[in-house]
């Protein structure tokens, strides 16, 4: 228990928490963006994976992590486009479309990774982003090492959250997104292009979620492995709801999740005699408790998951 109060350990612990939440946060932010426009995004998992694969391909081909980001975001955006075409234009049930995309991405990335990387898939060490210490800031005790000596993508994530927040509440288009997600017919009558807004949001969401995959590959493990998203997209989905469909809320939810995931690793260490499954349940149980504890009810965007067709009433 003593180790908990050791400043270095604590700061390492916070740093682990943050790192575990970054991919979640990108995905959750993407979820917020697309669900606020009324498109349910169960495809986050697939987008993360597509992004991870793209990042690996880009970094491998061009030997440059920025190329990895570019290709990763492109692949994510493609997955997003696919969801938009199916869900917004064709009116395919968005959950089914999302699940189908997940399954497809899982198969195709595994298949193509064998084609692209061949046998070296798992020994490869791709160029990536390294942690750097911010001058002065990183010397602040506790949070300095935890927050101010991370790599580029962590800061990109924080900037993205702030940008999406400002976009939602300070810009004309953000207002349009919120309106489309609540009442597309009203937004339509006010001169907002419902399909346009949804396409924009879902494709952008694909690119943002892909950044989470880029982080996995370019900042964490420097290689691509099959199904490396490992269910993070679904946790992100929960974080979207826990964060009440707001960018900042979703980030907090992801941090909470990352915190308890890091904590469960630590608790396993400290209490070897307790069955580890109980610690592994912890992040999920805490999330449920957080929901119970929060006051007021979370109300999803009213039009979420609904196909909008003008002449239907």
């Amino acid at each position, binding site marked *: 228990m003593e180790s908990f109060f050791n400043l270095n*350990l604590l700061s390492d612990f916070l740093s682990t928490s943050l790192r575990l939440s970054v991919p979640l946060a990108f995905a959750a932010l993407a979820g917020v963006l697309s669900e606020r426009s009324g498109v349910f995004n169960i495809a986050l998992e697939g987008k993360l994976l597509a992004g991870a694969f793209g990042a690996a391909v880009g970094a491998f081909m061009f030997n440059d992590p920025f190329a990895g980001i570019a290709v990763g975001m492109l692949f994510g955006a493609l997955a997003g486009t696919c969801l938009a075409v199916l869900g917004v234009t064709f009116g395919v049930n968005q959950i089914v479309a999302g699940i189908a995309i997940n399954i497809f991405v899982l198969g195709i990335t595994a298949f193509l990774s064998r084609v692209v990387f061949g046998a070296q898939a*798992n*020994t490869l060490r791709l160029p990536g982003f390294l942690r750097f210490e911010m001058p002065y800031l990183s010397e602040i005790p506790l949070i300095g090492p935890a927050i101010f000596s991370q790599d580029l993508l962590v800061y990109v994530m924080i900037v993205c959250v702030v940008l999406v927040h400002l976009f939602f509440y300070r810009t004309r288009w953000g207002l349009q997104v919120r309106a489309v997600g609540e009442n597309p017919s009203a937004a339509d009558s006010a001169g907002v292009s419902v399909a346009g807004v949804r396409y924009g949001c879902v494709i952008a969401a694909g690119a943002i979620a892909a950044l989470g995959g880029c982080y*996995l590959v370019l900042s*964490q493990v420097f290689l691509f492995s099959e199904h490396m998203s490992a269910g993070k997209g679904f946790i992100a989905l929960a974080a979207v709801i826990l964060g009440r469909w707001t960018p900042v809320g979703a980030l907090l939810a992801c941090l909470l999740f990352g915190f308890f995931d890091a904590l469960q690793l630590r608790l*396993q260490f400290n209490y070897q005699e307790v069955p*580890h499954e109980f610690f592994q349940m912890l992040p999920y149980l805490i999330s449920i408790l957080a929901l119970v504890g929060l006051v007021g009810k979370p109300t999803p965007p009213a039009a979420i998951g609904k196909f909008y067709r003008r002449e239907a009433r």
Partner: protein
Amino acid sequence: SEFKAAAVLPGSITDQAFNQVVYEGLMKAKADLGIEVAFSEKVKQADQAEAMSDYARRGYPVVIGAGGEFTAAATRVSRQFDDTLVVVINGSPTENVATINYNNPQFGYILGFIGGKMSKTGNGGLIAGQEIKAFVDIAEGFRKGWKDAGASGEVTITYTDDWDDVAKAKEATLNLINQGADVVLPYLDNGIVGVVQAAEEKDIWVTGVITDLGKSSPKANLASTVLDFASATATAIAMAKDGKLERADFRFNLGSPEGHMGTISEAVPADVRAEADALIEKMKAGTFQP
């Protein structure tokens, strides 16, 4: 007719670990013996019995299930198909089924012993996907060896709940390192990569138990044993072809062609090596079992 062998694998044949090694053994048998082989990878647990019986039905005289979780299904399949020999790797001894096992505590022990000698902090860490018997045996041996080496601290275990999640494995390792472990042993599939990366970054030792990490990571590898499932698989198939594989439990000890020491780091001093060698000899001779 021509001899055939099939393997059913729970994971991906490119996982750099268990599944890949068994797959390689199958390919080795194909090349060495000139037989026909088939395999199914990433077979979900629910489909394992079905996959094995399907191969049996297709007339494969040998069907291999890669992993202890096949034991239950194997019993039923071999009951149903008299002409097929069912082989389970890491299975628990079962009537009518050939099981291939390693003397896991020995492998864990020797790594734990070397690790314990070399640890500065006295703390070691083990990382596994799930709590399966093979790993528990290795862990037990590792702990014993660690203690016998006279290390001061503890050996702790972390389960990641995912054999392939590289990022999670890496974070779990970093956590162990933060808590003071400076020798870690991964028992994972794809996840091993994450463990090795963390070890390299934090400049601590890793010990490999299944594959020789000295080949992929000479810098961080302290010592590796090789549970050469590939050879074991190929050996089993060859024996089966000659009709010599019995429906019983096979156990490979440390020091056999199928299970032996791998690379040991230059950093390990000669006296420790000598002590280790002596222990290995004793285990081989059967005078010592951890």
